[in-house]
């Protein structure tokens, strides 16, 4: 082996070695790198019980109840399979609406998630409003919806309507939750 081939081997081994090393660390830390827990994971008891963590999901259509006298808001979050109730008191981001993906930080008290902070996720779809309206009218919206739900992080749900309690035609694209 010439000196040049040795140097080539050195570069290749370094890339491969670091790759394996980091992959193992990533696998070991997988749980901790995830930014939030889904309602299903919480109901399976995977979320921490006595300290604060993040929950992520879509706001269930028709579940949002605002208190007229304060900033308190009650809503359910879904990952398509299971729902979990959330209570929040404070100012919501502009993108908060029914069907929107959100991430909330807080703790669980009496089987309700008490949020201290609510952040909105937006999806990776970009289109002019007219196109969005046209898609909704033609009924193609829900197809895209299911496409978007195929992301591995999502729990695949019953065909047609990923949002319990809302007609399929009103369903919005899920985004990558």
């Amino acid at each position, binding site marked *: 082996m010439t000196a040049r081939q040795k*140097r080539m081997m050195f570069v290749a081994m370094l890339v491969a070695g670091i790759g394996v090393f980091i992959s193992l660390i990533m696998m070991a830390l997988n749980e901790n*790198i995830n*930014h939030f827990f889904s309602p299903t994971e919480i109901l399976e008891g995977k979320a921490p019980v006595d300290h604060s963590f993040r929950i992520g999901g879509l706001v269930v259509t028709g579940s949002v109840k605002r208190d007229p006298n304060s900033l308190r808001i009650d809503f359910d979050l879904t990952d398509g399979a299971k729902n979990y109730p959330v209570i929040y008191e404070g100012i919501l981001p502009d993108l908060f609406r029914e069907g929107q993906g959100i991430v909330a930080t807080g703790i669980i008290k009496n089987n309700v998630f008490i949020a201290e902070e609510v952040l909105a996720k*937006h999806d990776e*779809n970009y*289109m*002019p409003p007219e196109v969005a309206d046209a898609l909704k009218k033609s009924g193609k919206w829900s197809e895209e919806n299911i496409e978007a739900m195929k992301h591995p992080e999502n729990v695949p749900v019953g065909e047609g309507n990923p949002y319990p309690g809302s007609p399929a035609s009103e369903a919005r694209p899920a985004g990558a*939750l």
Partner: protein
Amino acid sequence: MKLPAIVHKFSSPKNFYTMSGKMIPWFMWSFLITLFAGLYYGLFVAPPDYQQGESYRIMYIHVPAAWMSMFIYMVMAISASVGLIWRIKTADLMASVSAPIGAAFTFLALVTGSLWGKPMWGTYWVWDARLTSELILLFLYLGFIALQAAIEDPRNAARAGAVLLIVGVVNIPIIHYSVEWWSTLHQGATVGKFDKPSMHISMLIPLLVMATSFKLYYAASVLMRARGEILRREQNTRWVKEVVENESK
């Protein structure tokens, strides 16, 4: 494995200096044209987004800057490897002069992302996998720059820098796939999915124009920096003295 003779010929400092001098104006002009076209179409012609309204337009800076942050890192890692294996001085030099440009694009991606995050997500920063790995990329750039500055002998500096760059390559797929492997606040990829991009064509074209523009800027600025660095490193050679004499006439 040997490199073809033409590579060695082109990469000799003198030839590189002459050739790059001819290329820079082309890159610079096409950068300016695509920049103004991209900004005009992105900011004035492209329609607002159905969900984010006008705020999504910061994407025309944020996304190309983020792509460049990873692209320049890969260019640096590859040219540093070539410099390490084939002992090509110009390849080492390209890695070294690219670093501040790459760091600047990474910083720009982080700042624009943060400014975009506040109105859309409701926060400037979260420690999710995408944002954190991009921040680590900035630290890799800064570490490389510091390492280069700390070692005086250019050959030793290049060797140490190459090792750091090669080790850091592992971060690039992590940045790219972070939004798929883990649940993050940052949304998934829009462009570059194997199926069609989830962006309307009227919004996509200005984005691709901006991405081209940023690449041309990098090409022009990296060659300018490389020329300056070549003159500094080769200052005692005859051809550099001739160049300096000719240009100061």
